[in-house]
C-alpha cells in the first residue's frame, strides 16, 4: 500500500517537474528573429525608396504625364488595350514614370502595382489599375502621391507630348469633372511594392 503510494508520489512529482521544465523551455524557444523582423526591415527600406521615387516623379512632372497618358479615341491608357493596364516592361517603357519604376525595381526582384484613384461628383472614390503585376504579398508597402488636375491641363499622346485636347473638352477621360470651377479632379497615385 505504502509502496504504491510512494510510487505514485514519485511519478507525479517527476511529471510535475518535467512538465514545468518543458513549459518553461517551450515558451522561451519562440525565436523573435528570422521571417517577421527581417521582412519588416525590407518593408521599411522599400517604403523609403518608394517615397523618394514618387517625389522625384512628381517634381519632374513625370507623374502628371503618366496620369494624363490617356488615349482619348480609344478610352484607355496608350497601348494598354485590351486589359486597360500595363504589365510588361515593354509596355512600361513607353512613358517616363513606367521607366523610372522599372529601372528602380525590376533588377532587384521587386514587383510593383500602381493604382490611380479619382473622385466622383457625389463624393465617391473609384480606383483604376495603371500597372498590375499580380497580388501583392503580405509584406507589401504602399506610398501615394496626389496629382491635381485643372480644366485646361492637356492630355498626352503616346509619344508623351501634349496634345491639343484639354481635360474639360475630353469625353472619354476616366475621371469626371467634379467641380464647376477651374479644378477638374484630384487623383491619387498609389504604388504598391513588394518583394517577389
Amino acid at each position, binding site marked *: 500500500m505504502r509502496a504504491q503510494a*510512494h510510487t505514485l508520489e*514519485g511519478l507525479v*512529482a517527476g511529471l*510535475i*517537474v518535467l512538465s*514545468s*521544465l518543458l*513549459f*518553461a*523551455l517551450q*515558451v*522561451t524557444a*519562440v525565436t*523573435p*528573429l528570422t521571417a*517577421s*523582423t527581417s521582412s*519588416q*526591415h525590407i518593408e*521599411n527600406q522599400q*517604403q*523609403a525608396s518608394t*517615397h523618394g521615387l*514618387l*517625389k522625384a516623379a*512628381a517634381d519632374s512632372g513625370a507623374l502628371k504625364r503618366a496620369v494624363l497618358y490617356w488615349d482619348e479615341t480609344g478610352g484607355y491608357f496608350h497601348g494598354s488595350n485590351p486589359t486597360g493596364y500595363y504589365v510588361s516592361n515593354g509596355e512600361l517603357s513607353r512613358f517616363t514614370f513606367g521607366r523610372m519604376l522599372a529601372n528602380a525595381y525590376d533588377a532587384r526582384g521587386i514587383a510593383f502595382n500602381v493604382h490611380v*484613384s479619382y*473622385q466622383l461628383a457625389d*463624393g465617391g*472614390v473609384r480606383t483604376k489599375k495603371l500597372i498590375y503585376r499580380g497580388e501583392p504579398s503580405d509584406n507589401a508597402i504602399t*506610398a*501615394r*502621391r*496626389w*496629382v*491635381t488636375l*485643372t*480644366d*485646361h*491641363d492637356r492630355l498626352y499622346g503616346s509619344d508623351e507630348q501634349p496634345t491639343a485636347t484639354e481635360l474639360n473638352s475630353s469625353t472619354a477621360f476616366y475621371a469626371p469633372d*467634379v*467641380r464647376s*470651377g*477651374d*479644378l477638374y*479632379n*484630384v487623383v*491619387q497615385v498609389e504604388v504598391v511594392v513588394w518583394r517577389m
Partner: protein
Amino acid sequence: MADVTGRDGDDRHTTDRSTADRAQMFLIGGLALALVLVVLVPVLNSAIYTENLATRGSSGAGVATTFQVRADVQRGVSDVVQQSNRKYAAYADQLAAVRAEVPVLEALYMRYDASDGRMLSLRYVTGSDEPGTRIHQDAVDDFRADADGNSTDDPTWTLVEQTPVVRNFRLAIPNRTTLAGTKTDAFRIVFDRDPATTGDERTVFLYNDGGATVVAVDGPGGSLGECRDATGAGTAVDVTAATVEGERCPALEFLDDVPSDFDVRYERGGNATGTYEVTVKRGGSTSVPSSPYASGNPDANDAVYGLTVHLYVRSSDITYQTDIRVAPGEADA
C-alpha cells in the same frame, strides 16, 4: 528484557524515512527550480517584444506622408494659380478664382485621407496675395519690342524696372540657327540692379556655337559658367529653374544672388527668335513700361505672383500646421 522485536522494521523505517525525505527535498527543489525558470519566461518574452518593437521604423511613414501632403498641396495650389493667371485678365478676378478654389481643393484632398483617419484643413491666408505681371510672347518672333513708342522694334529694351523677384522665366528657341554665332553678338538678358552704374549686372548670353546652343552667364566678378545643348534643332531654357533642355545648369543658379529690386533688360533682341514668358513681382518701386507691350507681342498681363495658404494636418501620431508660400516657378520655392 527489552522488546526488540520491532527493531528491524524501525531501521527500515528510518532509512525509508531519510530516503523519502531526500526524495521530497528533490521534489521541492525541482519545483522551485521550475518556478525560477518560469519566472525567466516573462523576462525573455519582454525582450522578444522589444526586439519586435525595434524593427518598426519610427513614425517614418507618418512623417513622409506629412511631407507628401505638404508638397502635393503646394503643387496643387500652384497649378490653380497658373490656371487662373491665364484664364482671367484682371488681377481681382484671378485672385478671387484662386481663393474660391482653395476650399474645393481642401474637400478633394480630405476625401482621400478621411478613410485613413487623417484630417486636413486648408485655407487661404487673407492679405497674403502678391500682385505681379506676366510678360509673355506666345508667338514665335524675335525678341525685340518697341520701347520708345515710335512704332519700330528696338533690340534693347527693358521688360520691367525695379522688381524684387521673378519666377517662371522660360525661353524656347525652336531653331538655334536664328541665334548669333559669337558671344559678342549674342542676345543677352541683363539683370541690373542699378542701371546708372555698370559692372553690377548679371548677364545671360544665348548664342549658337557651331551647332550647339551656348548659355553663358557673366556676373560682376567675371564669368559664372556656361552650359551647352546640342540636342534637336532648338533649345528650351528655364532661368529660374536653372535648367537647359531639362538638364541642370549650375551657371543659371545666380538669381538668388541678385540683390532685391533689379531691372530686367533684353539686349540685341534681334539675334534670337522664339517664345518666352516671365512673371515678375510688383514691389514698392516696380514699374512695367507700357510701350513695349502696346502691340500685344509681347504682352504684359496682371498676374497673381504668389500667395500663402495655411495647412493643418492631423493624424493619430502627428499634428502639423504651417503656412505654405505658393509661387509657381520661383527659384527657391
